């Protein structure tokens, strides 16, 4: 056995320790045999400690499984070895040929390609958290839908005003009742569009309820503090829960207030008090002179909530009670 000399070194060390610590209490010979057995097993593992990626495919080649199945199994094994840094670097294709794994260079490339594709797909899937991505994209779609609705409605209103210049300002209708009226009027040139705006609004309602549901599931603590929609927008802005959890409260507070933050940094104007969290009614409806305080306190609690959401993944009643107390307190004049 090639590693035997290393063993004896280990044994002497263990021997010394044991004889110093527990001399007389344990039969040394028994102890030594136990240690040797242990080392033996480790060595058997150690033999296949570091391997080239294609050597892992060799074992699969012996399996009578289908080609696709064996690629999948080999990929899994390679992934495991790679994550434990147990793969040898700098593969040489001639080696793989000599070992009888592939017959020539062409087959080598075709094998590494299959393995790489399968590795990439599996890593891609691992990296994406489907629910989290769904929430992020849903909230982006929601905001885009809102934007589209309001832009289209505005253009419809422009058209209406251009056609009814004589109407007195007092007669100007609310934009929604205007769209309603056009949607009912079959002969109106914008009838079809108005109906579509209605439909778009219905879609918006569906998406928004989906967002609420996902946010309540993925960000339970944040949703409880500042509402599911605001939480989801914060998440969408940052990109992932892991990054959100690592974010300082001060950054959370001004997330979405980029232009005024940079104006502050470059020209020394007042710093922004709030970004996306302004949409939370507790901030929006707070007295003007208190908004800064409320958003600061809210952001601090949100930063903690984001961490609980990411690392624990469940609502913490005790934390939520204390946090909401603090936020309400911040909204009251001292």
């Amino acid at each position, binding site marked *: 056995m090639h590693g035997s000399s290393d063993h004896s070194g280990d044994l002497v060390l263990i021997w010394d320790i044991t004889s110093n610590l527990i001399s007389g209490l344990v039969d040394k010979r028994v102890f030594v045999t136990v240690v040797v057995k242990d080392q033996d097993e480790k060595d058997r593992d150690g033999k296949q400690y570091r391997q080239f*990626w294609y050597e892992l495919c060799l074992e699969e080649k012996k399996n009578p499984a289908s080609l696709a199945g064996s690629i999948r199994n080999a990929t899994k094994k390679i992934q495991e070895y790679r994550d434990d840094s147990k793969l040898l670097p700098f593969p040489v294709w001639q080696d793989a040929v000599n070992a009888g794994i592939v017959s020539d260079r062409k087959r080598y490339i075709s094998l590494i390609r299959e393995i790489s594709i399968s590795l990439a797909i599996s890593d*891609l899937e691992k990296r994406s958290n489907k629910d989290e991505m769904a929430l992020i994209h849903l909230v982006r779609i929601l905001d885009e839908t809102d934007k589209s609705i309001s832009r289209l409605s505005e253009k419809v209103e422009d058209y209406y005003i251009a056609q009814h210049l004589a109407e007195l300002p007092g007669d100007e209708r609310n934009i929604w009742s205007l769209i309603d009226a056009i949607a009912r009027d079959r002969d109106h040139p914008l009838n079809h569009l108005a109906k579509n705006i209605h439909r778009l609004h219905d879609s918006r309602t569906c998406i928004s309820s989906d967002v609420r549901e996902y946010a309540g599931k993925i960000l339970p603590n944040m949703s409880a503090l500042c509402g599911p929609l605001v939480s989801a927008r914060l998440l969408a802005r940052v990109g992932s829960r892991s990054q959100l959890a690592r974010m300082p409260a001060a950054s959370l507070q001004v997330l979405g207030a980029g232009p005024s933050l940079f104006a502050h940094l470059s020209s020394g104007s007042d710093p922004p008090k709030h970004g996306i969290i302004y949409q939370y009614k507790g901030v929006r409806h707070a007295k003007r002179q208190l908004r800064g305080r409320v958003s600061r306190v809210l952001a601090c609690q949100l930063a903690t909530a984001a961490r609980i959401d990411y690392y624990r993944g469940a609502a913490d009643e005790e934390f939520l009670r204390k946090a909401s107390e603090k936020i309400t307190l911040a909204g009251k004049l001292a």
Partner: protein
Amino acid sequence: MIWKDGRLLSPGKILPGDRVYHGMRTWDPAHSKVAALCHIHGEPPVKDACILYLGAAAGSTVSFLSDYAEVVYAVEFSPRPARDLIRLAHQRSNVIPIFEDARYPERYLPLVEMVDVLIQDIAQRDQADIAIRNLTFLKPGGHLILFLKLLSMGIEKKREELTAEVLMQIKTAGIIDVKVINLDKYHSGHVALWGTQSVQKNDA
């Protein structure tokens, strides 16, 4: 490489949406920095070569390289373009997609062979560092092509300063005969550095 009427052409499989000239795909210098390099300075030795391409994105440049090269290892770390890259690899037998961060070559060290050409096309602040870390893959005498997006390295320093800095960096890392090629004609704010891995350094 194949040229016709001042156009660079590519002999590979034509897919829907490709621009075709005389029955071959045209490799547009405005869309690919490698093509721009061919137009402005000269062709890199990609014919039948083994190439490592960092920052493959959706793989349009990689698809052209794969027409000429023997094999292209394409590294991309952003999930969305990586999907397209995987699709490309399904269609081309010599494209090997690697979904890893090029900053950590040890992750794909066990999969990639030694290569003849290393192309770095990642526009990040540490773009020169990324190239240097990946030099372990480059055979002695192999070519390094480093595309620098100068804006990615901050706006405080002048272009000449930045280029000189990176030049020093890669020379210390063992790259010799470095040529600096201005790609402004097709890609504004981009510079290509093209050198070869010194033979002595690897012998030592």
